[in-house]
């Protein structure tokens, strides 16, 4: 099934000995010139056409790379401080899932940073200019660029290393800076850049046009009706709605994402919310984050503001998506605010888990927990939710609220072992713009720590299913956990569980209420 070795699951975590460069063969496909230019990057030149095309760096790439690095150093305090403050203590060296899964020394967070830091030192510091050998500084060469391209696409920007760093150095920031530099010299990544292009031209990552979106929403309404005989709606572009739901486009048809979407719809239905999706903002994901581009990230975010204004909504709610929630929670107010035209009595934006938790607390949802009795659940904390955003109004709400929702709709829940959850959670192995088939080897190896913890939970606690609130996590798990003996349907959306357990009026004995319900619609 694969032309590489799938790592062996171990009962106890084993920190491997570092092996230099065993993953250096792996690089994602390079973005074509038209996709570079659509994002405001210089178009690269084609060296070799065909199935495996090669591109050459733009003229004057070396100076331009160094200039770009200088520009980023002046624009991002984090990047500047992180380039200086590492003492090479080694605290991060055993924290990265890609290191643990690949054994490649350059996948140790500090070693990854050093790929860039060594060049920073050479061109921007006294010690590196005059004593390069002494401080590990090196010239920027084409080999270095290739190494950057390979290893900065072996980082999922999950920030686990940063939690453990005594100086808070965030490799995600370094990776983003490196990708931004690479894109500026003609080495953008195909998967990320083409997806951003689709968001700009069509409106979502999957390139799902408005008509197809409307069709699939109608199909979902029919599915729900066939299932529970309640006319739950999934409105699109409904002007005057109170709530705009922005959700990852995978929710429109991928499994198990779509079951989550039906869950949101049922919660909205049960709370009597007047809500809508938007064809303009038919994507919560924001890959501008992954490539470290403030400009693209903002341009993508603006669609949400514009959709909210056009539809005249009062609230914005985000569906289950990890990095989208980072951009939503941490950046949206900066990128696309101020949101003075929205109802200030609700968080802007609000997470669907926060919304559902509130509804549960207010007793608005009629829940039959036994509907999920065929499962023993555990919960995967998605890195961008766990370490880069929050929920509720206190630190750590992002851990409690999804768990509270799960426990409110399921009888059987257990956490995976400490050190693999909460802010120490392991990445699914496919985050940060790496969810592409050309990086399958990395994805299979990078899932190792999560797969080990899940396997232990299965053995020790009889766990049967793992819930997640991230579209990328769900896609990665369903595709890659089968390499470790799991089946696709063992991965569920949190709101899929809600969907299973929620009892809507007009169901069963309350059937006679259905007329009233229709009248409200």
């Amino acid at each position, binding site marked *: 099934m694969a032309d590489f070795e799938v790592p062996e699951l171990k009962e106890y975590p084993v920190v491997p000995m570092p092996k230099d460069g065993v993953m250096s063969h792996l690089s994602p496909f390079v973005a074509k010139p038209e996709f570079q230019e659509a994002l405001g990057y210089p178009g690269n030149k084609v060296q070799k056409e065909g199935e495996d095309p090669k591109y050459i760096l733009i003229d004057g790439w070396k100076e331009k790379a160094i200039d770009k690095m200088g520009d980023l150093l*002046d624009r991002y305090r984090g990047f500047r401080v992180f380039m200086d403050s590492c003492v090479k203590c080694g605290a991060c060296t055993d*924290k990265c899932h890609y290191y643990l899964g690949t054994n490649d020394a350059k996948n140790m967070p*500090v070693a990854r940073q050093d790929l860039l830091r060594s060049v920073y030192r050479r061109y921007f510091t006294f*010690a590196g200019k005059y004593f390069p050998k002494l*401080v590990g500084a090196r010239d920027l060469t084409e080999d270095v660029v290739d190494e950057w391209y390979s290893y900065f696409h072996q980082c999922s920007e999950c920030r686990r290393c940063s939690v453990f760093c005594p*100086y808070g150095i965030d490799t995600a920031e370094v990776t983003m800076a490196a990708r931004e530099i690479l894109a500026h010299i003609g080495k953008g990544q195909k998967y990320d850049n083409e997806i951003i292009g689709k968001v700009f031209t069509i409106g979502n990552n999957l390139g799902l046009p408005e008509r197809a979106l409307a069709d699939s929403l109608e199909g979902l309404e029919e599915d729900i009706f066939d299932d529970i005989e309640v006319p739950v709606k999934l409105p699109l572009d409904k002007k005057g709605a109170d709530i705009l739901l922005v959700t990852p486009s995978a929710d429109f048809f991928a499994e198990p994402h779509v079951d989550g979407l039906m869950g949101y719809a049922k919660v909205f239905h049960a709370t009597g919310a007047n809500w809508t999706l938007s064809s303009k903002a038919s994507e919560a994901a924001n890959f501008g984050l992954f490539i470290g581009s403030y400009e693209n990230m*903002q341009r993508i975010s603006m669609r949400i503001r514009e959709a909210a204004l056009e539809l005249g909504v009062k609230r914005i709610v985000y569906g289950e998506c990890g990095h989208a929630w980072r951009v939503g929670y941490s950046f949206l107010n900066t990128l696309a*605010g101020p949101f003075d035209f929205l109802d200030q009595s609700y968080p802007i934006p609000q997470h669907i888990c926060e919304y559902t938790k509130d509804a549960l607390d207010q007793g608005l949802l009629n829940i039959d927990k036994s509907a999920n009795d065929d499962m023993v659940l555990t919960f995967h904390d998605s890195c961008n939710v766990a*370490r880069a955003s929050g929920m509720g109004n206190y630190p750590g709400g992002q851990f409690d609220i999804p768990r509270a929702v799960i426990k409110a709709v399921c009888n059987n829940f257990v956490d995976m072992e400490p050190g693999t959850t909460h802010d120490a959670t392991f990445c699914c192995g496919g985050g940060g713009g790496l969810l592409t088939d050309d990086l399958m080897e990395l994805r299979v190896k990078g899932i190792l720590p999560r797969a080990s913890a899940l396997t232990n939970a299965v053995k020790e606690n009889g766990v049967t299913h793992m819930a997640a609130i991230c579209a990328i996590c769900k896609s990665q798990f369903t595709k890659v956990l089968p390499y470790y003996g799991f089946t696709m349907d063992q991965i569920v959306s949190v709101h899929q569980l809600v969907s299973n357990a929620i009892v809507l009026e007009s169901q069963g004995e309350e059937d006679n209420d259905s007329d009233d319900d229709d009248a409200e619609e």
Partner: protein
Amino acid sequence: MSTLIAVLLSLATIVMIVGLARKARQYRATPAPLKIPVTPAPKTTGGVVLRLAKEVIFFASLFRSNKWTWLFGWMFHVGLALAFIRHLRYVIDPDGMLGFMWPLISLEVVQSFGKYAGFAMVIGLLGLFARRILVARVRYISAPSDYLMLLLIMFIGFSGLMMSFVSHVDIVGVKTFMLGILNLDLQELPESAPLMIHLSLVALLGFILPVSKLLHIPGVFYAPTRNQVDNPREKRHLSPWAAKYDATRGSDKNAAAQ
């Protein structure tokens, strides 16, 4: 020789202070356009102060990460801090401007703690050095300067301990010399090889500090991942260069008009 040492120490002090100040100013002047605290993060400024204090005083994240590195690193830094406080006696004139500190610095407990802290410091450094050689992961990420830096501080510690416990130095003479530098009235330094070595290495450390990884000293305070308040939804965060995108986006009008 006294003059040379005096000049070196003075220059090193100036280079260190100016260099660190310039770096701190550079960090401050560089915008942090986005809210990137590693969460869960405090929601108030007071909480951030507490978070940073835990990092600076107890090395909280390092403790979570690796107990051996924490143990040696913390021993070294606390030893250094105590030894540093003990050394203030050489530059504080009881009748001078900083004289108000004298009763504290001259306390027996402060002085003896500082004396034995030298051992903690050197043991910590030896531990860190051993880790750097013995742990393959740490060895891989080490540059020559990483070893040399440990050796430099270790030799400062050795030479200091030598003077405390083996080959005593005329400390009254040392104090006269140091106050002489401060008062721009140069005095003779007592003859002592360990003292020469000690002071030369300290001067070297001062020169190196602002151009080396010792920039983790200001860096720890300026990491946005640790010093930002986690309130992006409550309060709009906007840095000057990011603000220009606000002005240029201008699509609200079109949107609202539709």
